[in-house]
C-alpha cells in the first residue's frame, strides 16, 4: 500500500534520513520506533509531502506521492494525527471533528462518523461543545485521532500518540488503535514507547539517526536482545 524506496531527506545541509526503505501492506499495523531525534517525524513529514525527498521514491497504492501537496493526501485516503496532536484550540471538540471531515459533503455520513468517534472515545462526547484547548493531554490525543478518522482514511498515520500521557491514558489510546485496525484501517504508528508499540503492531522498523537498523515481525523484535536492551530497558 505504502512504499518508501531508498528515501533520503535533508534539512538544508543536514541529512535527516539516509536511504530508508519500508513498506506498509493493506490491513497491517506497522510501527516505526526510535529514540528522540531519530527521524520518525521526518519520515511522516516526507510521506505527507511537507518535506520533499532528496532521493528515492514514496508511493501510495502504486502512485508516486513524494513531494505532492499535503492537502491532496486526504482525498487519496491518507490521514494523520500529527506530532503534538495539533488540535484547533479555539474550536470546540465537535468543530474539530467537523474539520476532519472538511472534504466530505454527505452530512449524514459525517454525523454517523462523529457518533463513531464519540463511541470510541466517550470522553469526547462529554466535552463535545468545549474548546479543544481546555482538554487534558489525553483527551486532546483522542480528539486528534478521532479527527483523523473523520475523513475515513485507508491509511492512518499516528505520530507518537502516547507522548507525555499517563499509563492509564496510554492504555486507552492503544485500545483505540486495536479497534481502528479491527475495522480494517491500515496504520503506520510512530512511537518512542517501543513496549506498547511492539505489542500492538504486526511489523516494526527501528530507526536510529536517520537509518533503519532493524526490521521484522513485532513479536520477534520484542524478543530480540538488542531491542530489549536499547528500547525496552530490560
Amino acid at each position, binding site marked *: 500500500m505504502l512504499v518508501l524506496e531508498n528515501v533520503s531527506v535533508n534539512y538544508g545541509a543536514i541529512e535527516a534520513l539516509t536511504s530508508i526503505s519500508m513498506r506498509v501492506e493493506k490491513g497491517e499495523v506497522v510501527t516505526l520506533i526510535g529514540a528522540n531525534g531519530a527521524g520518525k517525524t521526518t519520515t511522516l513529514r516526507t510521506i*505527507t509531502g*511537507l518535506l520533499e525527498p532528496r532521493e528515492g521514491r514514496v508511493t501510495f497504492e502504486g502512485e508516486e506521492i513524494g513531494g505532492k*501537496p*499535503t*492537502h*491532496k*493526501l*486526504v*482525498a487519496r485516503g491518507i*490521514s*494523520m494525527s*500529527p506530532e503534538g496532536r*495539533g*488540535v*484547533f*484550540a*479555539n*474550536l470546540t471538540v465537535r*468543530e474539530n471533528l*467537523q*474539520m*476532519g471531515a*472538511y*472534504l466530505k459533503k454527505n452530512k449524514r455520513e459525517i454525523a454517523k462518523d462523529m457518533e463513531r468517534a464519540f463511541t470510541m472515545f466517550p470522553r469526547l462526547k*462529554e*466535552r463535545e*461543545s*468545549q474548546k479543544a*484547548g*481546555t*482538554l*487534558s*493531554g*489525553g483527551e*486532546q490525543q483522542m480528539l486528534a485521532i478521532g*479527527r*483523523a478518522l473523520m*475523513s475515513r482514511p485507508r491509511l492512518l498515520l499516528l505520530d507518537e500518540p502516547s507522548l507525555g*500521557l*499517563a*499509563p*492509564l*491514558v496510554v492504555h486507552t489510546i492503544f485500545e483505540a488503535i486495536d479497534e481502528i485496525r479491527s475495522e480494517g484501517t491500515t496504520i503506520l504508528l510512530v512511537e518512542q514507547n517501543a513496549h506498547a508499540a511492539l505489542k500492538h503492531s504486526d511489523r516494526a522498523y527501528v530507526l536510529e539517526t536517520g537509518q533503519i537498523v532493524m526490521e521484522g515481525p513485532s513479536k520477534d523484535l520484542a524478543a530480540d536482545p538488542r531491542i530489549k536492551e536499547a528500547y525496552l530497558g530490560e
Partner: protein
Amino acid sequence: MPTFVKRIVGAVVIILLLYFVYMMMSEEGLFGFGIGAYPADVLMLIFVNIILAVSLNLINGFTGQFSIGHAGFMAIGAYTSAYTTVYHGQHLERWLAASIGETPAIAIVFLIAILVGALAAATMGLIVGIPSLRLRGDYLAIVTLGFAEIIRIVILNIDVVGGATGFSVPGYSNFIWVGGFAIITIIVIRNIVRSDMGRALISIREDELASEAMGINTTRYKVIAFVISSSFAGVAGVLFAHYKKFLHTNDFQFIRSFEVIIMIVLGGMGSITGSILGAIVITVLPELLRQLPTINLFGSTVNFADLRLVIYALLLIGIILTRPQGVLGHHEFGLNWLKRAQKRPEGDEPIGASKGVPIAERDAPTADSAKEAKNQ
C-alpha cells in the same frame, strides 16, 4: 417571519436610520438642529476605520497571518478611484444625468469608482499575497510593510494624480455611502467567518500544518482571505478619498496601517465587534486629546494630540501586559454569552490547570478528595 423578510426589514430600517442621521448632519439639519461639520467628520472617519479594522481582522485575527500594509491597499483604492472619477467620472456623470437625473447619475458613477478601487486593491492583494503566503512564517508582514511604502512613494511621483502637491477629488461620498459600506463590510466578514471557509481560516490560525492535513489548501484560503481583506481596504480608500475631497500620500503613511493594527489588537484579534470597538476608540481618542490644553514640555508647547503615537505605544504595551488577547479576545460582544456561559462538566480541568499531575491521577478522585466527600 421568514429570515429573509427580517433581513430586508432590518436593512430598510438601517438605511432609514442612516438617512435620518445624514439629514441631521447636513448643514441646515433636520428640524433645525444640524450636527456641525466636525462631529460629522469624526463619524465618517469612524466608519472608514470600521471598514479597515473589520477587514484587517479577517486576515490578521481570524486567519492568523500578519499584514501590516493596510494603508497601502487603502491608497490603491483611493487613488485608482479618484483617477476614475476625476478623469472619466465627470463626463459620464453629465451624460447619465441627461437621461436619468443627477442624483442617480452620481450614484452610478460613484458605484463604478468603488468597484474600480476594490478591484485594484484586490488585484494588488493577489500580487502581494501569492508569493508571500505560499511560505509559512512572517513573510507577509515584511512584504506588506515594504509594499505599502513603495506604493506611497510611487504615487508621490505620479503627476496625473497630483504627486506631491495633492489631488482634488469630487465629493461624492457621504454618510449613507460610508455607513452603508461599513455595514456591508461587517455583514460580509461575519458571514465568511461563520461559514465553512471561516472555520478553515480559523483552523489555519490555530495550527497550519494540522489544517493542511485535514485536506485544506491553506495557501489558497490564506490568499483568498487576504484578497478580500485588501479589497475592503480599497473600498475604505475610495470612500475616504471622495469624502475628504483632497488626497495626499501623507494620509497613507505607515502610521495609518499601524493605527488599524492597534484597533484590532485593542478590540480583540478574531472579534468583529472588538474591531468595531477598537475603531471607535482609536478614532475618538486623538480627538479627545486635542481638546486637552497644551502643556509646556522642555520649553516648547505640546498638544496631547501630537503625543498620540506615544499614547498608542503605551496603550499597546498596557494591553499586551494585561490582556494580550485584546479587550474582547476571540469573543463577540452581545448578550448571548450570558446564555452560553459554559457549564464545565464535572471533574474537568483545562490542560495546565494542574500541571505536573499525571492525567490518570487527575481524572480519578484522589484519596484526599474522597475523604472530604465522606466528611460532608
